[in-house]
């Protein structure tokens, strides 16, 4: 069972330190928010007022937090009006954000082999998680990412082998590689070194190549579109490994007050509606997709 997580939520008005556009309408945003940065965990999000004129906030997953320097980072894609307005904000502007919010991913010591699966806009929290696992020496993560857009990160041919994958699938994120974390990419758009297909195919091949003793130590963490999460949950069931998924839903308050973000889940007491903002966004896969 995942433990509930109730940290204080900070309202901050922080300066935008940098804001870079990447191909495909993707943006990397760094904001000063020391109180949020101090306690942020992978899987949590900040609830952001994109411009003063647009008061309803947007939840954005944290890509990174630097407690020492006091900033937090987001990677988002322009999908609607809110994110389009956010994309127009410049370094030096101030951003109103509430955070960190939500139940984070929770790696378990008895499962030190973490399989991390991220799809599209679900990639940021997965990278944050990989980094923290490495910093805290909680295990040996492997990271698979799927995207139909160019990856907004430096890539490099990997020196870290990944069991179950062909040698030519060797492109990795420089950031992960530098941390000594094996990573691979999937896309339906053909690209050298990138698996042509779905990210869940990488996950399946990796799981199938694990020795049974190792498989027992695996835990899956996934964030991405709902069909991807369903497929990952199915893999977890098939290989008998625990799995945590991070969900998205429209939000209003973002702090648990309105029940506007509730989704159906299974609990030992029967069906229930749980709030994605504070009960999640991370849930056990079987809560969402059944045992």
């Amino acid at each position, binding site marked *: 069972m995942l433990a509930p997580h*109730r*940290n*204080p*939520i*900070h*309202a901050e008005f922080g300066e935008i330190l940098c804001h870079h556009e990447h191909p495909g309408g993707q943006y990397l945003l760094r904001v000063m928010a020391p*109180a949020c940065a101090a306690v942020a965990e992978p899987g949590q999000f900040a609830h952001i*007022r994109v411009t003063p004129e647009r*008061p*309803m*906030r947007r939840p954005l997953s944290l890509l990174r937090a630097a407690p020492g320097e006091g900033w937090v980072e987001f990677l988002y894609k322009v999908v609607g009006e*809110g994110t389009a307005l956010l994309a127009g904000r410049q370094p030096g502007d101030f951003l*109103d954000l*509430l955070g960190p919010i939500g139940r984070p991913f929770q790696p378990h010591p008895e499962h030190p082999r973490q399989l991390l699966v991220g799809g599209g806009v679900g990639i940021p929290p997965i990278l944050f998680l990989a980094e923290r696992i490495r910093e805290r020496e909680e295990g040996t993560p492997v990271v698979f990412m799927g995207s139909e857009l160019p990856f907004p990160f430096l890539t490099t041919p990997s020196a870290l082998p990944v069991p179950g994958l062909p040698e030519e699938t060797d492109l990795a994120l420089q950031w992960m590689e530098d941390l000594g974390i094996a990573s691979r990419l999937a896309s339906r758009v053909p690209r050298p070194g990138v698996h042509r297909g779905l990210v869940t195919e990488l996950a399946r091949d990796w799981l199938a190549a694990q020795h049974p003793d190792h498989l027992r130590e695996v835990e899956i963490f996934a964030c991405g579109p709902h069909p991807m999460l369903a497929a990952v949950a199915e893999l977890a069931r098939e290989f008998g490994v625990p799995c945590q998924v991070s969900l998205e*839903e*429209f*939000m*209003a*308050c*973002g*702090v*648990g*007050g*309105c*029940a*506007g*973000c*509730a*989704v*159906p889940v299974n609990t030992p007491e029967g*069906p*229930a*509606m749980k709030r994605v903002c*504070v009960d999640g966004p991370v849930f056990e896969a079987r809560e969402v997709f059944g045992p």
Partner: protein
Amino acid sequence: MSRDPEQAERLRVDFCGLDFQTPIVLLSGCVGFGDEYTRVVGFSHAEVGAVCLKGTTAQPRLGNPPHRVYETPAGMLNAIGLQNPGVDHVVEEILPTLDFTETRFIANVSGSTIEEYVRVTERFDDSPIDAIEINISCPNVKAGGVAFGNDPDMSARVVEACRKVTRKPLITKLSPNQTDIAENARRCIEAGTDAFAAINTLMGMAIDIESRTPVLGNDQGGLSGPAIKPVALLKVHQVYQVARPHGIPIIGQGGVTTPEDAIEFLIAGATAVGVGTALFYDPLVCRTINDGILDYLDRHGLATVGQLTGTLVRNDEGTCCA
């Protein structure tokens, strides 16, 4: 940071004999069961006169499927569908955890039948709750709710039945989705209501043009936020004409986000002012509103916020005083 006691005193209002430390009421459905916002650093119940808890029914309800909320121009739609753990759980498990020294807590009662309204009201009567708000205006449930609230006969019957089972202050929450809100208010006064809350959300819809399906899981929902403020002000003004002779106070609400909004509602006849959707914008908005009201009182030479209530000077009544 607390306010100087003399200033704080100017914000105090009497609402049906209840002492509200400020005129602000946190609205039902926007603050869960009273403790969620306390996690936001800087948020304080000292800024609010009362907190209305989420709509409560006799049995637990799961509510509507997603999506439940959707942003619209100057507001939002919601169709939560009264998700709540049932009145027994609320009274036994939640009320004991609330700090009644911080502010007043008001229950929000809903039901599909008159019997259910009565059963829930009865249960709250035997609890530490400070007052009971009857929600006959929820647009998001199949039976009861707004179907009762839009029919003056049914409204009066619900109020009358609840009145019989409680001596706590009874607040009737009126629907804007009806032809003659003043007539409905009149009937509710006869039936024994002590106060009004006006207005609940306006019924609305949003459509996803790609899939040609309604955005909300419940197809339709309730519109709140600044978009409804002009409607709300007029309804409060109309209800006030009926309520004033009986000394019956109103919690004015619908789109309040600034001190100026709150002051408009007070002038229109409200004794207290509700804040719901604006909390989603800014969880610390109550302090800003209170400070802005104090500033206004200074500028207009008024001693207390209560002196503002119902001070509207209609254009056919001559020019404004100060």
